[in-house]
């Protein structure tokens, strides 16, 4: 390599810092391949991410708020949420286990929420009391629509101090 450079210097009088024509073309070629690879990665990622999803809307209608009697936990297996009527008002808990995504079940005789897959247990606040679940069941945003229906947004997590008063 060094010899080539010195030779080039002798023939054309270039300085040592100059690159040969071959080197510059090799770099140009490798550079364009690298750019093409980056483009293909971005293109591939975009292609594999669907832009339109034919999935259920995250907002579900739970019906009139007076469906839920005071001091009760109601399971809605379609919306995959629990509606809890506490002293402060109504709140919604996700029924999807935070361990690996199974649908939990409300056990009225035990007063707990239990997951059939790996045995996680939660109380009606969503706090984990047993099992491998790493996080409590999240509280979901609930509000009353203009039509007087209770709506839940399953994609938005709310804080424990938010209730719908009835």
């Amino acid at each position, binding site marked *: 390599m060094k010899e080539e450079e010195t030779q080039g210097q002798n023939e054309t009088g270039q300085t040592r810092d100059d690159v040969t024509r071959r080197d510059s073309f090799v770099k140009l070629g490798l550079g364009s391949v690298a750019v093409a690879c980056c483009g293909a990665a971005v293109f591939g*990622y975009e292609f*594999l*991410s*669907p832009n339109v*999803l034919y*999935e259920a809307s995250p907002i579900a209608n739970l019906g009139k708020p007076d469906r839920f009697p005071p001091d009760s936990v109601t399971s809605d297996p379609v919306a995959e949420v629990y509606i809890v009527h506490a002293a402060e008002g109504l709140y919604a808990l996700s029924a999807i286990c935070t361990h*690996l*995504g*199974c649908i939990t079940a409300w056990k009225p005789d035990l007063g707990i929420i239990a997951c059939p*897959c790996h045995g996680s247990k939660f109380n009606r606040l969503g706090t984990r009391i047993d099992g491998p679940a790493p996080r409590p069941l999240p509280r979901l945003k609930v509000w009353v629509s203009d039509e007087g229906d209770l709506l839940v947004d399953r994609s938005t997590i709310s804080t424990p101090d938010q209730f719908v008063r009835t």
Partner: protein
Amino acid sequence: MAKALEGYWNDLRDTKVWRSVFRSGSGSSTLHRSLAVQQNVFLHLASVKMRRRSLAFSVTWYLGTLTFATFLILTVSGILLMLYYHPSVPQAYADMKDLQFVVSAGVFLRNLHRWSAHAMVFLVFAHMFKVFYRGAYRPPREFNWVIGVILLLVTLFLSYTGYLLPWDQLAFWAITVGSNIMSAVPIMGAKLRFLMLGGNTVNANALLRFYVLHCVILPLTAVLFIGIHFWRIRKDGGLYSSKSDAGQGETTEAAING
């Protein structure tokens, strides 16, 4: 009688057509046998000669060969199952049931595919244990061990993607749990899960993606690495055997009669 048959056999091997396909021609000298292996696209992956004791049952228990045999069974039965299976939400479960109760020999093919898949996973692990405890992974074969680990992962992914295709409750929850395990990957876990499922839930896109992975991408990957795996056996000095292996001495024999 036997002599006459051998004569016909040799005449056949000297015909112009036969020699245009198998160039080594008749004869059973070591050169002929070597050429027969070297010049065959399938056999040339293997060594021309191997130690007789490395072919003894006790050396390998033929676990690698048996694994490959299950892979061939899975390929053939899988292609046949594809003729009746639609990877769509309304049809997948019904097609699986049709294969069991309506299609002639469908239940045989489905069960063959299922049991061969279980057998393949078992044999892959058995093969790995045999290689490990005999020390056959040591240099110069250490890279072939790495290829083997890739093949183990491909086998497990084939198993996992095939698990969703019956589209029953077991399949749905297994993939729900499995894809949530994937989202535990640091930083990009949730993104990976989204890309693998083609959405946020196990749904039509997930079924189609798993089908394509199961029937096209993973089998092609497996074939590629199986090819490298077999070729490396020859390049790394043949099947591993130690002096203590039972066999018939040090004699070498041409592996395939040409």
